[in-house]
């Protein structure tokens, strides 16, 4: 086995063939290492959400005499939230294209629109939460509401952190320009933002549309 590999290697070395064995290629490019590492982080984050989804699925019927999901949730409201997040995921894609083209104006416009749509989503969610707490349906009311606030609140917290990250990245583009380091961070941000939209598909399907 190793003799065959050695022979192949010797042949490559003598003929100057361009196929290099994977073990001899050296470390991958930093862009790939960073992107892959961040991808693994996102998958682990999705596993965190899956635990919260499991808790919600188990506890969604335990209302302890309090209001149930059908009584609390307003689907028109959720539809607008979903539209905001989906549109911001799309504009985040346009933002990535502008970064790839190193277009400062395009990146700025993309970032601003993405930020505004994300902020609108958070604004709607915060107003929904405060309305629920005001009518006595806060997280301490029942196991169902604890699970609801844990799941949807964690998602909202992620989006809020994403917004802060986006502001930081806009400042970095403005001050540092499109350095390789900044571009890598921007692609990590895009990955994070798209992943949050994927989690939201689970939230609106299971929590809001699946309410019973």
């Amino acid at each position, binding site marked *: 086995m190793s003799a065959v590999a050695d022979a192949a290697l010797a042949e490559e070395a003598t003929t*100057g063939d*361009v*196929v*290099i064995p*994977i073990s001899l*290629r050296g470390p*991958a*490019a930093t*862009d*790939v290492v*960073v*992107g*892959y590492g961040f*991808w*693994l982080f996102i*998958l*682990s984050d*999705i*596993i965190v959400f*899956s*635990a919260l*989804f*499991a*808790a919600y*699925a*188990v506890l969604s019927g335990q209302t302890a005499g309090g209001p149930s999901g059908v009584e609390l949730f307003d*689907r028109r409201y959720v*539809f607008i939230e*979903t*539209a905001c997040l*989906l549109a911001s*995921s*799309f504009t985040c*894609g*346009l933002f*990535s*294209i502008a*970064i*790839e*083209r190193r277009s400062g104006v395009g990146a700025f416009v993309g970032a601003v629109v993405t930020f505004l749509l994300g902020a609108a989503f958070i604004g709607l969610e915060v107003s929904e939460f405060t309305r629920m707490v005001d009518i006595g349906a806060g997280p301490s009311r029942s196991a169902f509401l604890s699970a609801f606030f844990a799941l949807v609140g964690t998602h909202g917290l992620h989006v809020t952190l994403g917004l802060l990250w986006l502001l930081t990245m806009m400042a970095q583009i403005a001050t540092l320009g499109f350095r390789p380091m900044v571009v890598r961070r921007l*692609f990590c941000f*895009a*990955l994070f933002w*798209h*992943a949050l*939209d*994927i989690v939201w*598909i*689970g939230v*609106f*399907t*299971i929590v809001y*549309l*699946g309410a019973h």
Partner: protein
Amino acid sequence: MAEHGIAQESVRDRAPAEERGGREGLTRYVTGLGFAIVLTLASFWAAQTQEVWHPGIPILLGVLAIGQMGVHLVFFLHISTAPDQTNNFLALAFGCFVVGLVVFGSMIIMANLSANMIPMDKLIQMQR
């Protein structure tokens, strides 16, 4: 090293959400947005329609949600099974496996515990 450059470029891995550049990128996002809008509208329609057999609606919603997640992965995160994406795809497959274990495992265990639990009134009777 120069003659090795081309081969290394072609076998180089691709990071998720990496841009290919050009018009192709924009077309991809627009297509993805179109699919996502259709699937989202279908989900909201399915949740309140009277035209579908009622017990089937949760399954319909699940199918639509998984479809939309797939659309987002392919068109927004540019995940594929191409050779330069093997690592990304394997990581995703492992992630899905763990998510399935956590969600369905928890649901089965908790449903089983709930089914085997002594009803609360009987428990209080026993304690007397």
